[in-house]
């Protein structure tokens, strides 16, 4: 099997070290509320300049899935989610901790995370080569249709009203057109600023809207933290009935995460919400949920870890990132001149399988990191946010400056930070903005090619069956989104880091 002949064989000592460093850093970032994997990966993207592409990717993805493990710790101990996909874990994790079950909750979230992650990697290694083989035959019109479908899905599935999501992807796509048009050589929306000729920096956009925009509101919001319960190693071992109760939710959550993970815009957060909702609905004792039901933490934590791994499927097999974090990861690849797309796995088999091998390794390391080292993570949680955010701001400024070696990018961060502030003020989510920014230019390019082939006829383009089916799906999702706007159903989690 290629995983062993190519994957584990291609892992060097350096990449193993970076895998460890990545998941360690990821756990750290996951544990700390207010610091997200997206910001960390954006800041550390320049490592790609110094490492070979496989090692860089191993390192950056380690941060990504490592954060998912660590994220539940703050949910359980402080009722504050470490990352947004752990928000739902607060509902039952925190009451469990209040009932003296903090240790058990930490153990449960670790092994269900491992299970979810492992199944996710299995799916990733079987499905990605299959999908990319199918996708090689795809023409520009189908590719444009897939991109449009992804954009609309990303806009409507993510939290908040779908209309606002669509507005955000459009705004993102507009930002994506800034710079020299590769096709005509025209300058678009550069306002004569030479620093904008190469387009808006993705890293500055991500760090501004997510990083700075978040800090402004979080300074006050993070002040209210309760005292933390004590955890001893003995209290971490779940009893037999507790263990048995987590098994089926773990399997169901993994199933949900595996299906939802690859969908653009959905990802781990949505997966954990659905996982929780299903457990509550099928439970014979739904009234226990919200009061420390162990099923309420095992399903969502399995779901988000499965989703984190399966999110790599569209990214690696089609070159279509479904989330801002994935987009940054692809950006790191492009630094090396590797353009991700359907041919990626066929052309770079060592890199693909090496990456998968590192995921196995990383998940095993995480299992080890989380259980015995729990004391370190709990100690970190005692650091108040007021001591963290100035450091976050400093890292963002210095990081962006380092990336471009010009002060202009720092000004961009300031501008996008203000944009991020406005978005939060007006109840918009910045995630679809970034997805539109990434997928917009890809859509433009493929639309241009498709229309060239079909002599400018949209009807002709839609006469290709695959394109027509994809477009119908897109229209269906759009209609559903418009109808959903008038229904009162709201997800019950708040905004979070």
């Amino acid at each position, binding site marked *: 099997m290629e995983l062993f002949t190519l994957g584990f064989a291609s892992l060097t000592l350096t990449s193993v070290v970076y895998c460890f460093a990545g998941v360690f850093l990821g756990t750290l970032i996951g544990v700390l509320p207010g610091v997200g994997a997206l910001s960390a990966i954006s800041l550390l993207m320049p490592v790609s300049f110094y490492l070979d592409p496989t090692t860089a990717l191993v390192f950056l993805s380690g941060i990504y899935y490592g954060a998912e493990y660590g994220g539940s710790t703050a949910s359980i101990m402080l009722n504050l989610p470490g990352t947004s996909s752990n928000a739902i874990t607060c509902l039952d994790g925190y009451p469990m901790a209040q009932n003296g079950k903090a240790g058990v909750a930490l153990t449960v979230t670790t092994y269900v995370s491992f299970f979810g992650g492992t199944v996710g990697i299995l799916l990733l290694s079987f499905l990605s080569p299959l999908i990319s083989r199918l996708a090689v035959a795809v023409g520009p019109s189908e590719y444009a249709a897939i991109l449009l479908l992804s954009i609309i899905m990303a806009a409507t599935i993510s939290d908040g009203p779908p209309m606002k999501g669509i507005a955000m992807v459009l705004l993102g796509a*507009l930002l994506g057109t800034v710079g020299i048009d590769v096709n005509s050589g025209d300058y678009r929306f550069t306002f004569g600023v030479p620093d904008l000729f190469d387009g808006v920096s993705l890293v500055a956009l991500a760090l501004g809207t997510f990083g700075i925009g978040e800090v402004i509101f979080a300074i006050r919001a993070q002040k209210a933290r309760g005292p933390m319960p004590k955890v001893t190693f003995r209290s971490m071992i779940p009893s037999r009935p507790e263990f048995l109760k987590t098994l089926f939710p773990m399997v169901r959550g993994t199933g949900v995460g595996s299906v939802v993970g690859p969908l653009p815009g959905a990802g781990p957060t949505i997966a954990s919400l659905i996982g929780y909702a299903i457990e509550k609905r099928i439970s014979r004792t739904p009234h226990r949920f919200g009061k420390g039901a162990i099923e309420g933490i095992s399903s969502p934590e399995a779901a988000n870890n499965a989703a984190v791994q399966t999110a790599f499927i569209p990214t690696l097999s089609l070159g279509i990132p479904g989330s801002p974090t994935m987009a940054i990861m692809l950006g790191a690849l492009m630094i090396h001149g590797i353009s991700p797309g359907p041919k990626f796995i066929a052309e770079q088999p060592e890199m693909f399988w090496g990456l998968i091998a590192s995921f196995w390794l990383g998940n095993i390391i995480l299992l080890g990191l989380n259980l015995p080292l729990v004391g370190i993570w709990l100690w970190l949680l005692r650091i108040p946010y007021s001591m963290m955010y*100035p450091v976050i*701001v400093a890292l963002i400024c*210095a990081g962006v400056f380092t990336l471009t070696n010009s002060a202009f990018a720092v000004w961009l961060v300031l501008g996008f*930070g203000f944009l991020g502030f406005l978005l939060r003020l007006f109840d918009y989510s910045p995630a679809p903005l970034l997805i539109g920014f990434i997928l917009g230019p890809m859509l433009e390019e493929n639309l241009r090619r498709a*229309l060239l082939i079909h002599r*400018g006829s949209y009807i002709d383009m839609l006469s290709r069956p695959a394109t027509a089916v994809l477009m119908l799906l897109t229209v269906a999702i759009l209609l559903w989104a418009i109808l959903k706007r008038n229904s009162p159903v709201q997800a019950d989690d708040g905004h979070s880091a």
Partner: protein
Amino acid sequence: MQPKLNRDAVSGLLLALIGAAAAYRAFDYGIGSAARMGSGYFPLLIGGALVLLGAVIGIGGLRASATPIHIPWRELTLIALSVASFALIISRFGLFPALAVSGVLACLADRDIGLRRTIGIVLFSCLLVWLVFVIGLNSPAALIKV
């Protein structure tokens, strides 16, 4: 008195304005035809859609009433000043002076951070940035310029 804001009406209007401005500029770039898209074709499409959507959101918002709004002025101003000061100082004076000034401004955003803690945070930031970016990532940024 708590200020109020009709979030959807205002944001819808803003989005529609941005879309309109982009679509207007797009004409200068050349629309071309569907078969031979000019560089203004796609921005016109996106700008037009944004106008439409902004209008829908804005008009939908008019039916609702304004809700109280809470703007964290102190945090907003000081964090903005912190980033701006970094951008201003970095090119002329180098990394450490930029980190020191922006760090102090950032700490002022939270009124509970005392002087001693501010100094500690700034020193820690300098150390961390130096380790990560200068030592780790080989940044060519000068630490201090005179």
